[in-house]
């Protein structure tokens, strides 16, 4: 297993290096940060001074070299916009996004698996058909639109939930977390549901397909013949066997939730990383864009690793050292 993990980490390193080059040259080609940041009435001298202080007067390859030289020391550069280390800016926003992603994932799992299993057990019932139709909506409605509709319904017309922003934050185990107070929870609920909708539909469909497949397996028939109760069959034997695809997909989706919840964060003005990314792209804050994507690469690599390990725990037939990735 350790060989496997080491190999994975080496691959990750390679991916990060390649990514850094692609991202850096990508943002290098787009626009000119000076034109975005400079005040209208600055003269040419002032503009030149800015170009110099940001190091934009140097050729691309030199800029990239300087970036790499600093990056290996853990310094991913300073944000053009805020003049603070890009890495800190991103890490500062990470708890808010993590919180949102975890709540969204919980919603997807807690509601998705029972609904999906139900739909798999009784495929012809009216309830199951409604669940499946609902999941189509979850797939196909655009997040942005659903978010706005939710705000209009729950915040504007009913007035039950706050429309935007993040609630009061408490520091728990060194992490600023908001979900454990009512104020915080009421703020996180709508964006989390909005973010979860797509994943929820996905989990429902995976769980349903898995259940239908598993129910016809011999070991289920045998369990029934043995006289096990329905609840035991479903909760132990079915559940365990449908979890593998669900865990795999959710692992990958979790990365997506953390990295690219841009739309939801924008609609609900959630002060997370996604909003930082989209703002940084708008303002051509190159160091933040590059640092962000670097972190995301790391994140995905680790999630994949974690999923592989979890996989082996769920299914003893999977032996990690045999996996030639």
């Amino acid at each position: 297993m350790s060989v496997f993990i080491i190999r994975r980490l080496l691959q990750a390193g390679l991916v990060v290096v390649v990514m850094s080059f692609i991202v850096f040259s990508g943002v290098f080609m787009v626009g000119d940060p000076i034109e975005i940041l400079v005040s209208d009435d600055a003269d040419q001298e002032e503009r030149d001074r800015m170009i110099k202080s940001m190091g934009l007067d140097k050729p691309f390859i030199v800029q990239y070299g300087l970036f790499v030289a600093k990056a290996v020391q853990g310094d991913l550069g300073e944000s053009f916009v805020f003049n603070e280390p890009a890495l800190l800016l991103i890490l500062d926003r990470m708890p808010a996004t993590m919180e949102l992603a975890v709540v969204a994932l919980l919603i997807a799992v807690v509601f998705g698996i029972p609904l999906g299993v139900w739909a798999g057990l009784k495929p012809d019932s009216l309830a199951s058909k409604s669940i499946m139709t609902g999941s189509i909506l979850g797939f196909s409605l655009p997040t942005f639109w659903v978010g706005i509709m939710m705000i209009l319904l729950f915040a504007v017309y009913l007035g039950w939930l706050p429309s935007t922003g993040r609630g009061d934050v408490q520091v728990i185990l060194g992490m600023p977390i908001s979900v454990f107070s009512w104020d915080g929870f009421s703020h996180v609920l709508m964006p989390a549901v909005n973010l979860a909708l797509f994943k929820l539909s996905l989990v429902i469909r995976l769980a349903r397909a898995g259940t239908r497949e598993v129910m016809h397996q011999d070991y289920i028939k045998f369990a029934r013949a043995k006289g096990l109760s329905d609840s035991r069959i479903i909760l132990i034997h079915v559940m365990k066997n449908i979890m593998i695809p669900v865990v795999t997909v959710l692992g990958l989706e979790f990365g997506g939730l953390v990295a690219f919840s841009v739309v939801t964060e924008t609609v609900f003005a959630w002060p997370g990383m996604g909003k930082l990314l989209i703002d940084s792209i708008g303002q051509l804050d190159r160091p933040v864009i590059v640092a962000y994507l670097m972190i995301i690469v790391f994140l995905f690599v680790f999630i994949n690793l974690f999923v592989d390990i979890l996989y082996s725990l769920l299914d003893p037939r999977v032996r990690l050292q045999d996996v030639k990735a």
Partner: protein
Amino acid sequence: MKPWRQLGLAALAVVTLSAPVQAADVVIGMRSEPSSIDPYFHNLGPNNGMLGQVFDRLTDWTPGMDKIFGRAAESWKAINDTTWEFKIKKGIKFHDGSDLTVDDVIYSYERADGYEGGNSSFRTYTKGKTLKKIDDYTLHIMTDSPYPLMPNDTTTVMIMSSEAKGTGAADKNKGISAKDFNDGTAAIGSGPYKFVEWKKGDRIVLEKFDGYQGSMAQPWDKITFKFIKAEPARVAALLAGDVDMIDNVPTSDIERLKNEPKVSLSSGVSNRVIYLHMDQFRDSSPFVTTKDGKPMDKNPLKDARVRKAISMMINREAIVERVMEGVAIPAGQLLPEGFFGRSPNLSAEKYDPAGAKKLLAEAGWGDGFGLTIHGPNDRYINDAKIAEAIGQMLSAQGIPTKVETMPKNVYFKRASKGAEGGLPEFSFVLVGWGSGTGEPSSPLKSLLATHDKDKGKGASNRGRHSDAKVDSLLDQALATVDDTKRAALLAETTDLAIGKNQGIIPLHYQVNTWATRKGLKYNPRADERTTGIDLVPAN
């Protein structure tokens, strides 16, 4: 601690906390977030608006930008051609309790002038000025040549406490880094509000400064600014009652909000004009073509008659009515009515298709030619739609015009220096300009004076309009201390550069709209700033 005592304390806390909270806290939903709390880091609208509540300036503008009043300065006058004397008000306290004196002003101007890093400094306003302390409350600012815009320039640089401490390297920015401001350590001003906290991407909180001595209002005990970039979300936050006011109300929602009983709208014309630049420096302009799109070796835009004809083909009333939903004012020059140094002779060009046709024929372009208009799609109110409307109007009148819009982060680089040799890439561009000095010399200098890097002129002259007469008139105006004479000179310069030369085509002045809950109103600011000070109870 015993449970009942805890309960008692909690009750006490609730009582003491909620007493001053009543009706004196306000939450404002804003589109744009400042980039720093350091007052010299970034000369940008959102920063200047937010920080102006925390830091005083020597002078400042009234919301309508029609008058300059003294903030830290009690009075000011030019005592000779090259020296201005400022008297500082006595008794002004910083938020840490120390006194504001001339030393703090000089310290602040030094830090602003020598700022390293940052995104466009205030050097434009501090350059060429020497500050001299006469006594604790008398300051002389000296320049090499007569400098009439001194009180205008002093509306920009904010004053921080010279006793503020930072953690940065001592030789850089007085040892105070942007971070020291952002966490509040060094954010010590003397303005009506104290800085409390900034959660990036989320909110900025300000609190009333009890020791404030100045003339500005302090209508609230606590002001929370929430940053809500998405337009529908901002409107929804107001409708849901989560915020008391929003800025930058989308024009498409204005009609609906007017009928909303819970909401009042406040709007006012801004100092921003939306206008068109035309390539006047290339004989063969890349986006001026024959009617069927082939390159040409002649550039009709160099002829002032052609430029005037284009201006006459644009139906400004229609743009204001249909595209801007009535929320804009047709423009004929650089600043709307009421501003200093405007020309009395110029009003918005009348829509006159027949006249335009005649003029085109007179210039030898009666058969028309092809054009491409370029514009941003996320910078000004409805910018892409305006470009499309102009494209259609010109196309219908014999100048087939393609429309190309793009995000501002790509657009401005290409529009300013996208072509070889750092020249503007496009031939016909839509841009906007907000005059920070509240009079036309800044746009005349940047947009219509001959592009000259060494003189610092024409920095944003993307059509490279150039007329020696305009340059010399402007230089003369900039050196005239007498207000009446200077106003006349600026008007004359505008008459020549826009009225006669058609150096740019003004389209309209932007009108900004704020929406508040019923019972409040906003004093619309011509400089487009959103503050808590200008949000007041109605009546």
